[in-house]
């Protein structure tokens, strides 16, 4: 008898309309205040609050005229200093490569410590805290600190970029390790493999393509960063940017930007090709 009652009560779709929540008879009405509308109002308030920041100097300047005059001084790029610029570009590349290698070597053990599926919880918390602290300081500040310790030379750039990169690579690598199905490593551990063997054969083969891909991305990023940290004396092509800006030689400044753009484009293209080869299966 109870079976027939149950069947009867669940087979009347016409009389019982489907409601988003609650059972039949529950009156669903969308509330006028929802998360989207609250966020939108808060954003509009923030925009109004931020408007005074665009006040400028307060003087009556011809912004458009200034812009056109600047463009005349900016273009065309002047490559008259091509030889020292070439040397600086090579130095920038060297700094970025070394910083990426050092950061990768440091990041792998740090990422292992920051991975939930590998390390115990207290170690994971400590490692993640360290990574957040490193990431919270911009690369230029790390370069400034490195210049204070190592002096104004490319070594400072390598140290600064390495420290900054560890913050990001450590996070990316730990995400890659955590994305691995831990069943494989557990199966190996159950068959007698030790911790290192479990990592080497259970986790590393899965994480490897992501790690190569992210390391390449970091190299591209470091080349861009290495171009700017010369502003604070940490070597590379940035020192030329600083010099030309100080002297108001904007055509030469433009030439430096063209060099940076060329190297980034080449690296982006090569990186993309290599990343496709390493694409996870």
């Amino acid at each position, binding site marked *: 008898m109870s079976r027939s009652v149950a069947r009867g009560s669940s087979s009347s779709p016409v009389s019982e309309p489907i409601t988003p929540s609650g059972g039949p008879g529950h009156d669903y009405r969308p509330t006028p205040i929802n998360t989207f509308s609250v966020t939108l109002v808060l954003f509009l308030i923030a925009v109004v609050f931020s408007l005074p920041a665009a006040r400028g100097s307060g003087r009556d300047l011809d912004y458009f005229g200034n812009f056109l005059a600047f463009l005349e001084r900016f273009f065309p790029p002047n490559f008259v200093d091509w030889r020292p610029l070439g040397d600086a570009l090579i130095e920038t590349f060297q700094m970025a490569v070394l910083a990426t290698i050092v950061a990768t070597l440091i990041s792998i053990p740090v990422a292992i410590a920051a991975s939930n599926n590998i390390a115990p919880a207290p170690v994971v918390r400590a490692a993640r805290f360290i990574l957040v602290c490193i990431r919270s300081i911009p690369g230029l500040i790390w370069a400034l600190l490195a210049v204070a310790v190592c002096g104004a030379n490319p070594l400072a750039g390598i140290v600064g970029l390495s420290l900054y990169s560890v913050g990001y690579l450590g996070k990316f690598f730990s995400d890659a390790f955590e994305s691995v199905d831990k069943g*494989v490593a557990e*199966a190996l551990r*159950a*068959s*007698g493999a030790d911790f290192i063997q479990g990592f080497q054969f259970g986790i590393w083969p*899965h994480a490897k393509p992501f790690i190569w891909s992210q390391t390449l991305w970091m190299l591209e990023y470091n080349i861009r960063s290495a171009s700017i940290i010369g502003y604070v004396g940490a070597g590379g092509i940035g020192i030329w940017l600083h010099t030309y800006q100080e002297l108001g030689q904007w055509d030469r400044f433009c030439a430096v930007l063209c060099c940076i753009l060329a190297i980034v484009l080449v690296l982006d293209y090569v990186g993309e090709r290599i990343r496709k080869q390493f694409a996870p*299966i």
Partner: protein
Amino acid sequence: MSAVAHSLETPHVALRDMRVHRGTRDLVRGLNLDIPRGSFVCIVGPSGAGKTSFLSCLAGLMPSRSGAITYRCLQHCDHAPLGFQMRMGLVFQHLRLSQNASVLTNVLCGALGHAPWWKTLLGFSRADKSRARTLLKDFELEAYARVPVAKISGGEKQRTAICRALMQEPEVLLADEPVASLDARLAHAVLTRFRAETKLHQRTVFCVLHDPDLVHEFADISVRLDKLCPEAWRVDHHHRP
């Protein structure tokens, strides 16, 4: 009494008042069984009866709620499942293979328990590689040795997992539906190999199977689990010449 005769008479695995559970539900209760060394034990029953949980308890991957599972080694010492794991070969239902690694590397992983990490850090020994290649040949996988596991078929993956377990040279082989993805010929070949392992190397094999014909053909002992009543398990001994 010869060592072999003695080992045949002594139970290799002893289950005493074994109780298997999943969540709050008991799947098996009060199971008592002595399994001689070199037996082929089939675990059968409908889906949801607790075959995989039973196997997990035997492997020490899941605690049994009460009772005891005892493994007796060749030195006549008794071990709990966790202490015996190094001598067990496991074929998981979901295989748990390293997808990006090659078939050969996955099989070689079965030998990891035989060497410390610093010996396998740069690769496996020539002897291990040769043994792995022999296994791949036996299971018709030699052509896929260098292929990543992600790029082979389900049946080939299953055989890779079996090779990995055999690579361990285990005393006890626990296989959860090892022939589920194989055609009739390969399924027969795999179970024939398991049977040969029990006779030639005195390995005890626990195997979850669904096909009653295969159970009838290969099992020395079959344990039938019941989905509705945890105490309604049945043990059958199949006497073979």
